[in-house]
């Protein structure tokens, strides 16, 4: 699905629609619903030499010249219901996301099936899915791309920017347990997933195997409490030293299985007038071997081995604790909101970073919202910037964005 363009997306979608409607005509009780969502966003920053992005999977960002790619996306979804118990869902999503790791690749536009699953729902409270399913890593990660469903223009990157997995190829169950007026949800998922992360010129495209996720939620009236764990194992045969310093990418690769675990707890209150959201997320990994690959010392005169000992031996590649909290107030069709996000490197290799955002949503027409957002973030933030500025570590950058969100 690489190298597709919007026109091809339209053609593919048209074909899907035709296929679905042909299937619909074949069976009297079969019904198909097609719906879609999208965001057209324009983003720029007020500093030279930096590129602001909205996720780790973007290898290109917004500069002082306004950029359409960072926040724009288009999703199309079709659900065919065969019987009340059996249904199939397809979701096609186009967005800026690098999925290959070629150094000189210019392939930043990705159109892919975000979901493609068959569902069996024996009761209204229980369903099983097989195929490519949503991975609910954090509180709103299942709907992060649906701008119209979000109060802000861009979710806080401290928590949401670092998670490259959005779906898994595997199986999922959703079990709703009503207890009086409260509803508890248990959602386990298993499978594998491919993803990419980019650090400057280094793009790592890999697969996470053995992805296991458990999402627990409790909803009562205007309250939502949510806890989640996601675990996955990625083979890291890429030159891992490059993560620390891109000039070291020429070194031989380390063969290592990285076990990654994200744990998060979130709380949301929305009574229709007041809105409050907060979430804390922790990332933990297994440790690298205590001795570096023999190749390092033998082939390169010992220096890289020393580097390995200094930066990687007996340490995980990443360990972070991040959180955000934000609040807003509905004034008729207007929703102003303030959000503070914070991220700390628990390995102590980088200084903590934080950001402050002010956003405004205006519900302009049925299914159309206009948004603006200003975010102030440190230039050293490696999630927000493709090439973070580690040298002048207290430099702050303003990010200006406007967007139109729509659903149909």
């Amino acid at each position: 699905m690489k190298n597709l363009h919007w026109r091809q997306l339209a053609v593919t979608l048209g074909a899907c629609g035709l296929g679905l409607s042909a299937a619909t005509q074949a069976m009297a009780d079969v019904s198909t619903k097609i719906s879609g969502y999208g965001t057209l966003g324009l983003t720029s920053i007020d500093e030279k030499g930096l590129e602001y992005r909205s996720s780790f999977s973007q290898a290109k960002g917004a500069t002082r010249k306004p950029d359409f790619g960072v926040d724009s996306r288009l999703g199309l979804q079709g659900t065919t219901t065969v019987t009340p118990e059996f249904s199939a869902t397809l979701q096609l999503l186009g967005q800026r996301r690098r999925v290959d790791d070629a150094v000189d690749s210019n392939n930043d536009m990705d159109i892919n099936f975000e979901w493609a699953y068959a569902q069996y729902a024996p009761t209204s409270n229980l369903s099983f899915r097989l195929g490519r399913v949503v991975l609910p890593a954090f509180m709103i990660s299942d709907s992060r791309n649906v701008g119209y469903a979000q109060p802000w223009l861009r979710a806080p990157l401290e928590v949401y920017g670092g998670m490259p997995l959005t779906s898994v190829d595997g199986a999922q169950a959703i079990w709703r347990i009503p207890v009086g007026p409260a509803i508890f949800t248990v959602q386990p998922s298993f499978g594998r997933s491919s993803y990419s992360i980019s650090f400057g010129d280094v793009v790592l495209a890999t697969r996470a195997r053995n992805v296991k996720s458990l999402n627990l939620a409790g909803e009562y009236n205007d309250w939502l409490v949510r806890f989640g764990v996601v675990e996955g194992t990625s083979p890291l045969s890429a030159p891992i030293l490059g993560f620390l310093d891109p000039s070291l990418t020429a070194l031989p690769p380390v063969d290592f299985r990285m076990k990654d675990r994200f744990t998060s707890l979130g709380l949301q209150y929305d009574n229709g007038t007041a809105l409050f959201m907060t979430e804390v997320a922790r990332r933990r990994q297994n440790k690298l071997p205590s001795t570096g690959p023999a190749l390092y010392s033998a082939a390169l005169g010992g220096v890289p081995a020393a580097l390995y000992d200094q930066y990687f031996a007996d340490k995980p590649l990443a360990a972070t604790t991040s959180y955000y909290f934000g609040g807003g107030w509905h004034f008729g069709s207007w929703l102003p909101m303030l959000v503070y996000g914070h991220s700390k490197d628990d390995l102590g290799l980088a200084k903590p970073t934080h950001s402050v955002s002010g956003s405004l949503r205006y519900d302009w027409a049925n299914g159309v919202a206009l948004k603006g957002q200003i975010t102030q973030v440190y230039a050293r933030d490696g999630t927000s910037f493709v090439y973070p500025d580690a040298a002048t570590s207290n430099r702050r950058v303003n990010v200006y964005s406007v967007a139109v969100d729509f659903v149909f």
Partner: protein
Amino acid sequence: MKKTLMQGLFACGLLLGASAVQAQLAVVMGPNGAPISKDILANLYLGRSFEFKAIDLPEGSPMRDHFYKKLTDRDPAQVKAVWARVVFTGKGQAPLMLPDAESIKKAVATDPKAIGYIDKSAVDSSVKVVFTID
């Protein structure tokens, strides 16, 4: 003179009464429907629960907007945002939309799992009122 004043007051009362009646909505199910609480009803119309099949009036209908405002304290756009999240996370489909009280009554009378809301004055023996919204 006194009689005219009384007539005026009476007419005024009728008007007030009329507008109150117009705003009253009956949440209806089939003949075997049991009373339902406000919280559980809100769960059905905000996509948290699918134990019953919620039926809606068309978007833009003043009665629909009134129903959601009273039940959930949310404007039409906020309700649409809530449903966008439900639909595009695969949790469920938005309520079936039917054009008027007649079609809603017909739908709930034949499906014991269906639930809808109609003007209270349109209630008849084919349906059971399970909740009332002023």
